[in-house]
């Protein structure tokens, strides 16, 4: 168990492509950190640099008090779970778990004890003599985690470990990973592009985009106060509505000219406002209650069971806006909607930089 400290870590490929642009993160002992971002944001590269599979161009990575920049992956005291599991196909499950321990010259009975213990925790005891190809995806995933657990490392590194599983199994394994991490208390870094996975697993989220950190924070903090339009659109599903607005005489207006009543511009000429679909309320008439008022017409009603989503657009075209309504709400395409967002649920972002304005 240990802390992990990244200090201005950069990764440049081939002298010109900057995949990670000076990232600094302090990971506490026992913390579950999730690196999340779209593909190409540098999250996997960052993880692989912690693992020692990629060289660090500049900056410093410390595991515990030790700078590991030039330490071999095997000597970093970390264990990694790969997306495609990377089990050794010709070895039995037992040997898959034991291989890393054997290479460290551990005594046979200690290896046996650890493998049995990991198998018990993960409930894979019945498959120890099987080859990986005789296992289902979920079982392979458990074996891959077992291989990490037996090492009793200072940190677990997960590289999108659930993306090869089907949806149901993914949810089940997600819960299991969280439970396991809590009971073992091992520092963990988890990479995913799935914001739901990120929200549910993380003690703290690190949202990455284009090799930069967009925001670090607890999942609910990131959800409540996204630091930029990127985070706002990436965290939360369905994504936040982002509307470009500019100041007019009495408040704010959409780019197309439609005025928004009840909003203030915070002293700027233009900005982007963000409202989550779940924070838009259908009201019976214009100007009822506090906050921003919008008028839109329904395009499509999309029921998903527990709730429904209304795709609506403004009278003059332009941006489409997504509204969450109860699953029992009845709306017809073309119907006119009066929408309201409470002031505390409106996010303001700088029109140029996309950064949050408070």
């Amino acid at each position: 168990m240990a802390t992990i400290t990244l200090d201005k870590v950069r990764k440049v490929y081939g002298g010109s492509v900057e995949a990670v642009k000076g990232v600094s993160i302090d990971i506490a002992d026992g913390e579950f950190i999730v690196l999340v971002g779209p593909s190409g944001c540098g999250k996997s590269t960052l993880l692989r640099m912690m693992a020692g599979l990629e060289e660090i161009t500049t900056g410093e990575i410390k595991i515990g008090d030790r700078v590991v920049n030039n330490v071999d992956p095997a000597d970093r005291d970390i264990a990694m779970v790969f997306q495609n599991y990377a089990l050794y196909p010709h070895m039995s499950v037992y040997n898959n778990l034991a291989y890393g321990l054997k290479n460290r010259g551990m005594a046979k009975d200690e290896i046996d004890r650890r493998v049995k213990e990991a198998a018990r925790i993960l409930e894979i005891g019945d498959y120890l003599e099987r080859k990986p190809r005789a296992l289902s995806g979920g079982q392979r995933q458990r074996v891959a985690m077992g291989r990490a657990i037996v090492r009793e490392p200072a940190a677990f590194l997960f590289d999108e470990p659930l993306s090869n599983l089907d949806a149901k199994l993914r949810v089940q394994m997600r819960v299991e990973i969280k439970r396991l991490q809590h009971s073992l208390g091992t520092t963990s870094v988890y990479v995913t592009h799935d914001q739901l996975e990120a929200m549910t697993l993380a003690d703290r989220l690190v949202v990455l985009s284009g090799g930069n950190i967009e925001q670090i924070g607890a999942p609910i903090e990131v959800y409540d106060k996204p630091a930029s339009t990127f985070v706002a659109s990436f965290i939360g599903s369905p994504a936040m509505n982002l509307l470009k607005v500019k100041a007019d005489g009495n408040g704010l207006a959409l780019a197309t000219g439609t005025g928004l009543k009840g909003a203030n511009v915070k002293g700027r000429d233009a900005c982007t406002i963000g409202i989550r679909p779940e924070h838009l309320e259908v009201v019976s008439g214009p100007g009822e209650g506090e906050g921003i008022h919008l008028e839109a017409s329904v395009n499509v009603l999309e029921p998903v069971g527990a709730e429904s989503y209304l795709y609506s657009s403004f009278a003059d075209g332009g941006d489409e806006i997504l509204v969450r309504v109860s699953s029992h709400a009845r709306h017809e395409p073309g119907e006119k909607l009066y929408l309201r967002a409470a002031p505390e649920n409106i996010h303001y972002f700088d029109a140029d930089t996309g950064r949050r304005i408070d």
Partner: protein
Amino acid sequence: MKKLQISDHIILLLGVFFMVTPVVLAFLTSTHDAITIYKEGIQFTPGGEFLENYETVLFEAGGFTKEVNGFVMLKNSMILGLGFAVGKIVISMLAAYAIVYFRFPMATLCFWVIFSTLLLPLEVRILPSYEIVQSLGMVNTYSGLIVPLIASATGTFFFRQFFMSVPDELLEAARIDGAGPWKFFKDILVPLSQTMIAAIFIIMFVYGWNQYLWPTLITTDESMFTLVRGIKQILQVWVGAQIPDFNEAMALAILAIVPPVLIVVIFQSWFVKGLVESDK
């Protein structure tokens, strides 16, 4: 559909017929004595000399020096075939491992240089090869017979393609598990390559077994002769009015076929199994 099947079978049967008939005839002929064959030509029925003929070619010393018999030649061929196949596999696996997994300057160039040697078969470089082997004093030795032939562009190419298809994560997992380059090769790559090794072993063993030109050149001592070149030697012993020993030549030819056939039969089940179990 059914009609198609019948015609398929006819075509297959014809193919089998064309390929097997000469072998069967050679076998049948090899069970007669030399005089019958000389008088009547190829025999279509089994004769009564089976044991005698095969015993003669296997154990009775022949040739000019009366030092070599079929058994010795069989042994020589076996050593050449095995040494050739094993040597090729070892060399080409190591070469492919270096090319695929190690970043060294001009690795790709190295690969293409190796690959381009495919354009230079033994026949093209036979004089310089002989010159080198001869000046190293390796004429009439097993190493002289085998070593100059074991560098294999084909094998290197096959193993390179195979290694490139092994997922990188396996290497990374092994690195985190503390396996160095040698351990990774020994513990992961070699077991994974089993079926590839079996396939190349079959091809190379048969290829090595059938080598004619190089053994002819490099072995002048009859005790080093291989079967394939020995057959000719028997027919050359044609002193005065003696009838050529067609029966023995046929028997030797049959003996020369047996080991490669056995190798193919034994390894092909592995080979097929390997093709079916495709996951890496």
